[in-house]
């Protein structure tokens, strides 16, 4: 979004559209008032599900989300992941819990900030900075050829931050965000050297249907981007857009057809939310070829090592091939990719399983190298033609990932062993038979998020990262080793750290193989991987009208299933809490009426009213009564006295009662 600087600075952040989610009505009311006092446009809701449906109903209807960590129906971090993946909005977490672990979790899940309750208004005054930062970051990814000048212009337009930073009540957060901002600027400068930045393409349902039609018309094996583009006849759509989308689509189809259960769950997750990341990934599509080349530069040695390790496990395929994340600063030249696929391939070819798992690995393999891959099944030949286009997309992915890397590294350092290496993970998906590097992997993150083990990276590449994270932690280790061989990227350090961290994190696993164990566990927890299979199957079945492509379907499925699995997996302890607390609200027809047409027709205000209505039904009535007379306040208290029991009698007043004051 290129907005003239004068317009931006004049009004912003007035009218910032905030969605605040908190199951505690007292806090919610206070937050709402505080945010209104900051001149933001506030929508409040007390259920995470409602929040998600609100966000889905009104795409681009909100600028930022503030959410509590502990909520009865959905863990705040899960909500954070969903939002990050589906809507790519900045999310601020808050909690009364200020323990370092939880705050760290927020950071690693990709929260843009973490506020400690009770929240002060000063802390809320600054939240607009996260929106600006995020948009700036996105703009950077979306850069056109004049990226350099555009970015500089943006930097100048940034509103003055210094004054506002100091007033934040959460100084720790301020430092983190400042640090993040500086890193972003560094990443931006690195990106200046890149070219081929293309505008983001959003694959809406209609667009995707056109695409699918074109593909079917041509025949899946013969569908090449150029022809698809011609058939679709969509102005402004480029061959590269189609190509990247096609690769994802093929991966999806491949996964649908006769893949083993393990893999299918994985793969489905990939495809489950293909569009989830589309939004974020698409800007990457146009990124440099350089990234691809860099990815390809992984020496065979490291590749072989990784693959050997990977092959050790039956399930995990992480072919080390995907090290695309390698040095982002490298001059990537597509021709320079030195992937020694033959060696790796032979290992990869050992089992179909592995190959299947390779789906979604964003590999920037050279066409010839791809040709070397011997995959038992498939229309590999067809793939070759797409490799080049995919390479471009890979580049974009890689760039994206590389951009996020610094942050990931930072996180790695800070992390206590959690998911740190997000970036490389996503890129390091197993090679798809076609060797198509995919943005698809990132999408799987959504699904796996449902398992609750996905962490959103701080950077924008969260979608990618999550994906990789979910797939297996082993990938992390691979990726690092891969990176270390080649480009001396930060991945080197990450690798060491990650492995250690991961080892400590993974249940009973040690070292490299442990990653695979994790991977197996992922599969074993299939029951919790709700919706993975369903997601895949829904892809064809229907396109949810309100959501782009499969994203909506899968994400909705995920959400629904996630919720059920959340209950399932032992988050029940929150559930009962929610029930008694909200019995009133629930009975008064809460959340659900707020969704759907009401939202659409009435917009945010109505939603806010309704949210308030259902959640505040009881207290509002009390409040109104109070305005009428004092008695209601007393009666409200008296009612509570009944609940509290005989406590009252034990206590004596100390003289500051009304009775002692002359009237």
């Amino acid at each position, binding site marked *: 979004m290129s907005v003239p600087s004068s317009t931006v600075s004049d009004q912003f952040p007035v009218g910032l559209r905030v969605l605040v989610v908190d199951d505690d009505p007292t806090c919610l009311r206070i937050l709402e008032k505080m945010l209104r006092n900051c001149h933001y446009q506030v929508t409040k809701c007390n259920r995470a599900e409602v929040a998600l449906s609100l966000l889905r109903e009104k795409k681009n209807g909100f600028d930022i989300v503030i959410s509590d960590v502990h909520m009865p129906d959905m863990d705040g971090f899960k909500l954070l992941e969903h939002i990050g993946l589906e809507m790519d909005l900045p999310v601020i977490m808050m909690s009364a819990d200020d323990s370092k672990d939880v705050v760290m979790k927020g950071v690693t899940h990709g929260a843009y900030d973490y506020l400690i309750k009770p929240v002060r208004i000063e802390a809320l005054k600054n939240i607009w900075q996260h929106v600006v930062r995020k948009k700036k970051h996105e703009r950077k990814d979306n850069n056109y050829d004049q990226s350099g000048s555009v970015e500089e212009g943006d930097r100048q337009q940034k509103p003055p931050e210094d004054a506002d930073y100091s007033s934040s009540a959460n100084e720790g957060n301020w430092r983190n965000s400042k640090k993040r901002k500086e890193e972003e600027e560094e990443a931006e400068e690195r990106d200046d050297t890149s070219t081929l930045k293309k505008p983001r393409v959003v694959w809406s349902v209609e667009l995707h249907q056109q695409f699918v039609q074109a593909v079917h018309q041509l025949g899946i094996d013969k569908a090449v981007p150029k022809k698809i583009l011609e058939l679709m006849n969509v102005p402004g759509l480029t061959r590269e857009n189609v190509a990247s989308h096609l690769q994802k689509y093929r991966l999806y189809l491949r996964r649908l057809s006769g893949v083993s259960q393990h893999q299918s769950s994985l793969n489905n997750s990939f495809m489950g939310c293909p569009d989830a990341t589309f939004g974020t990934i698409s800007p990457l599509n146009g990124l440099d070829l350089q990234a691809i080349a860099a990815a390809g530069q992984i020496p065979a040695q490291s590749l072989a090592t990784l693959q050997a390790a990977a092959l050790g496990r039956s399930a995990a395929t992480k072919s080390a091939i995907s090290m695309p994340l390698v040095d982002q600063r490298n001059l990537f030249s597509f021709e320079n990719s030195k992937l020694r696929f033959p060696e790796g391939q032979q290992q990869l070819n050992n089992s179909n399983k592995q190959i299947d798992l390779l789906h979604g690995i964003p590999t920037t393999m050279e066409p010839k190298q791809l040709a070397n891959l011997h995959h038992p099944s498939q229309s590999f030949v067809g793939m070759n033609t797409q490799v080049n286009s995919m390479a471009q997309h890979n580049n974009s992915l890689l760039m994206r990932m590389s951009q996020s890397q610094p942050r990931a590294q930072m996180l790695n350092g800070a992390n206590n062993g959690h998911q740190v290496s997000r970036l490389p993970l996503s890129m390091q998906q197993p090679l798809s038979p076609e060797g198509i590097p995919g943005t698809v992997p990132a999408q799987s993150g959504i699904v796996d998020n449902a398992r609750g083990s996905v962490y959103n990276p701080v950077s924008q590449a969260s979608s990618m990262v999550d994906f990789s994270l979910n797939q297996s932690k082993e990938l992390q280790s691979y990726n690092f080793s891969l990176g270390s061989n080649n480009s001396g990227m930060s991945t080197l350090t990450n690798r060491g750290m990650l492995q250690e961290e991961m080892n400590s994190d993974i249940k009973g696993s040690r070292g490299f193989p442990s990653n695979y164990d994790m991977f197996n566990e992922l599969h074993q927890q299939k029951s919790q991987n709700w919706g993975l299979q369903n997601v895949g199957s829904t892809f064809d079945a229907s396109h949810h009208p309100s959501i782009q492509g499969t994203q909506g379907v899968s994400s909705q499925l995920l959400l629904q299933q996630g919720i059920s699995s959340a209950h399932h997996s032992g988050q029940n302890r929150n559930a009962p809490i929610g029930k008694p607390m909200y019995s009133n609200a629930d009975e008064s027809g809460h959340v659900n009426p707020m969704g759907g047409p009401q939202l659409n027709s009435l917009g945010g205000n109505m939603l806010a009213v309704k949210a308030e209505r259902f959640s505040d039904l009881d207290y509002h009535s009390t409040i109104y009564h109070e305005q009428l007379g004092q008695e209601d306040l007393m009666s409200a208290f008296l009612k*509570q006295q009944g609940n509290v029991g005989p*406590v*009252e009698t034990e206590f004596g007043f100390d003289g500051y009662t009304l009775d002692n004051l002359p009237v």
Partner: protein
Amino acid sequence: MELHRQLANLRQSFFDQGYLDEQFIQLEELQDDANPNFVEEVVTLFYKDSARLIHSIDQALEKQPLDFAKLDSYMHQFKGSSSSIGAKKVNTECTQFREYCRAGNVEGCKRTFQQLKREYAVLRKKLEAYFQFARQIGPIEMASRPN
């Protein structure tokens, strides 16, 4: 004006005696012409909503054996609420209760919770009286920083 001064003194006593903390002032600062009874509204909201939690905790404390994790979770929620209105003494009891939960101390939990309920009730009465008084003597600037 004598009455207003008395009201101010009453208010100040809450801070001096540790019943309320800085967060209460945040609420006062949110009060404006559009929401002239905001503080009272929020406090009422808190008491109404938290009554459910109090009840849940009471019930949970009757069970045997105690589910400390659940109790801790309840209390975490309760504390989030009580801290948002600046109920300082109540918060202290919340923290103590959570510590006992983590230590698995049944007696400690029960004892602390009784104490918590007392503080909770006392504060309610004090605030109730305060709001009533304020309403009686008419609107005037109430949000003033404690000395």
